[in-house]
């Protein structure tokens, strides 16, 4: 069972050192002032756990997308 790749977009630029806190997701700053966290997430509970972490930091959540690997 391979992990799914997700892209999570939040408002604001998150420092790259947060990557580890978010289980190693890659952190990319966007020009529109948002940050995209990208990476493999093991399962649904893990995904929800991540969203809770985002919520706990007060980061406004904009979108969550599953990405097809190219």
């Amino acid at each position: 069972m391979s992990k799914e790749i997700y892209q999570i977009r939040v408002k604001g630029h998150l420092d790259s050192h947060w990557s580890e806190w978010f289980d190693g997701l890659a952190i990319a700053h966007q020009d529109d002032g948002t940050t995209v966290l990208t990476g493999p997430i093991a399962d649904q509970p893990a995904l929800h756990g991540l969203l809770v972490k985002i919520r706990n930091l007060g980061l406004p959540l904009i979108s969550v997308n599953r990405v097809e690997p190219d």
Partner: protein
Amino acid sequence: MTVPFLTTKFYIPPVRPGLISRPRLIEQLNAGLWRNDDFSRKLTIVSAPPGFGKTELLSEWVSSVERPVAWVSLDRDDNNPARFWAGLITALQTIRASMGETALALLHSSQTLPIKPILATLINEIAEETDALTLVLDDYHVIESQSIHDTLAFVLDHLPPKLHLILSTRVEPLLPLGHLRSQRQLNELGTDDLRFTFDEVNVFLNQVMSLNLSDEDLLTLTARTEGWIAGLQMAALTLQRTLSMHGQEVVHNSIKTFSGSHRYIMDYMTEHVLRHQPAHVRTFLLQTSILDHLTGPLCDAVRFGAAETPSSSEGFAACFHCTETPNSSQGILDQLEAANLFVTALDDDRCWYRYHHLFAELLRQQLSRTQPKLVPILHRRASEWYEENGLLLKAMRHALAAEDIERMVHLVEENALVMMGHGDQSIILGWLDTLPGDVVRSRPWLCVLRAWALAYAARVDAVELWLREAEKALANVKRQTLGSILSQAEEQHLLGHIATIRAYGMGWQGEMSWARELARQALELLPENDLMARGFAALHLAKSSRWDGDLAAAAQAYTKASAINQVAGNSHITILAKCCLAELLIVQGQLYRAADVCQEAQRLAKKVTGQAGGQLPISGFVHILKSKVLRHWNQLEAATRQVVQGIELCDQWGQVEFTLIGYNELARILQERGDADGALDACWKSMQIARGISFWPVAHADALGAWLRLAQGDVAAAARWAERNGLDVEDDVTFQYEFLYLALARLLIAQKKTEKALDLLARLLEIAETLGAIGSTIEILVLQAVTLQAQGETDQALAALERALTLAEPEGYVRVFVDEGVPMIHLLRQVAARSVATTRWVTATRRVTATRWVAWDYVCKLLAALEAEQDRSSPISETLIEPLSEREMQVLRLIVMGLSNREITESLCVSINTIKTHVKTIYGKLNVHNRVQAAGRARELRLM
């Protein structure tokens, strides 16, 4: 006591000095809450991400309101339903100490009870309140248990009008909000309501934080933070420092820079704020960030480890142990609070604090980034401190965070048994679930504990599985060449536990002799001081002895079980043991002692539920037992009251085994009161329940049905019962089946098969006498007396009756004689006559007689009761003093059909005089004076 709650959990957070007041929101809250002096809605939800001041707002609201408010600060450990509700009730008890006492006692019962009836009890108690009460649940988002959402929805559905609930949460809770909204029962405040407005930003930054910013700067900051309070707090702290070090111009510039950046506000500020703290404070903040709640001694333990802290067994309870030097933990906490730096005091004594959630999150992230290896060590230290101070749930939480399996195992092994004795079996099961499976299976004690938790939770099927795992683990441990880590004594102890639990399982499956043997073994293996297990084993030894018919051994074992469990503080099992003892005493014919034991049980139950006057579920059984005794004493009205109350209570709590015993009793009582239909109805109800349990109670209910039919004169139905069950007088009769064969004996008597009946009765008597079952002995002797009398063996009949009377008199038995109706009246009159004669002879001759003569008063009392019952319109038994002859029956039939004497003459082809004579005889035998009465009597006696 179960694992205690930290008292700060129920403190209402004091209004912090460094905050601004938010009157507009207070007004908004109140507008949605009140109508005149009562609540206009059931529920208020304040929902926003962290850092929007939800708790602060509610704390301000509470201080503004002049009504009683209870507060619960929820945390992850409240995800256990029993604990959640216990917490809520404890909070309500800060308003009134006795509120929800019964419900709380039921939650702590070691019996696994369904929650909704417990909540119904709670709701009823709250409904009696006259004041408008509010209950605040802070941080409801930590609750993930669907069961809790469901039970809370249930309570909301039935919420007493004088209670209002306020939930603060980060996310919309899984409650029926749509429903509540449409019913206009929901008051809501969301993120947009909570954001700081420009005016509020102004007050906060310029007045409270003394920053002296221009309107332009204020606007910029408001826009950039979007009114996020936490962000503004961070900004304020940074700007304060900038102001004091670099002046106003720099402040203005840094605001401009800040507003132009997208950087996550907390990142922007935290570093800044942290960097400027003294090193020891920085370290303090990082290291203590792993804690949910902070207090001096705990922080010391976490920072320095147990070795270097002053050991304080009173721990948090006595704050005067905290040293107050600036670098001590307590000192730092005080400083942080004074500087308004992210800690909130939880109580007025300034003993306990917590970090702002957001700030704690940031600190934890920094800690795990910069010093990852330290994190488990810190958690372990916290776990140890919490364990020392009896806060086991937190101790386990930190052990889990430290991923310290050894520590987790230690916590379970040390505390599980005591916790389960107080109803925390679901917590223990949860703990065991967090341990890796192979770890649990490798440790015999953990396997045993799991078996216990399952047994307590009534999941009997899984129990044997885990007992086998325990035995496997034990064998493995012994085989270890490094030397067994278990001593001989420990091994015995373990085996004792395994035997105890197995006895329970065997008993459950009906394997009584195995259960008895195992229970006996268990008591030999278990150490004297293991009260919990010994109490359990004693109870099962008693149950299985009772089953075997060893009544004396059972009585002893029940008394012992009751004593052990009482010392162990296990109220539920103590009361259960007393009930079983009372039931046994009734069988042994000790009615007065049985009544006493019932009183003891009731007193104990009252102690558990306290002043509130609620009833424990087991009290239902006590009522039923009391009704049994009362029935034997022929106090039928009182017996009815007791049994009805008992059935209601047992039914409410789903205690089916007791409910059906109740219905059996009710059936007998109703029959004896002359309500034949009611009796059959109760018997039917008993049968319905019995079918869902096992064949045993079904057989009982069936036999009871046969008894009722016989009492109602339907011999054919009873005969069908005997045939259906293949009962024969040639059968080998055992004590366990006594009830069946007594019913068969009654059938045989009704069928006039007196020889067979007497034969059966003799065998039954032998068994009953050998075992000391005096209750049955009396009943059998009575039946013998009546049967012998019908055979004309008057002397033997009187001998049997006199024996019965001698046994019955000291305990006040009445009913067993009254049940036999008219034949008994004749017999008793003869006994009385003999008694008088003997008395006269003794008085006259002044010689002591060897003949037992029965107390005159007692016989008179019995006769009076019998006569009183005969006077009632419905006779109890169908036996006429003198039965009608075949011819007379024919005539009666025609009378009932409404024929006149002349018409009967024509029908039967006999002379009118013959008919008249017959009619006169019939009237005499039926004890009536006219045709109408005759017809009525015939119907009553079911002669047609």
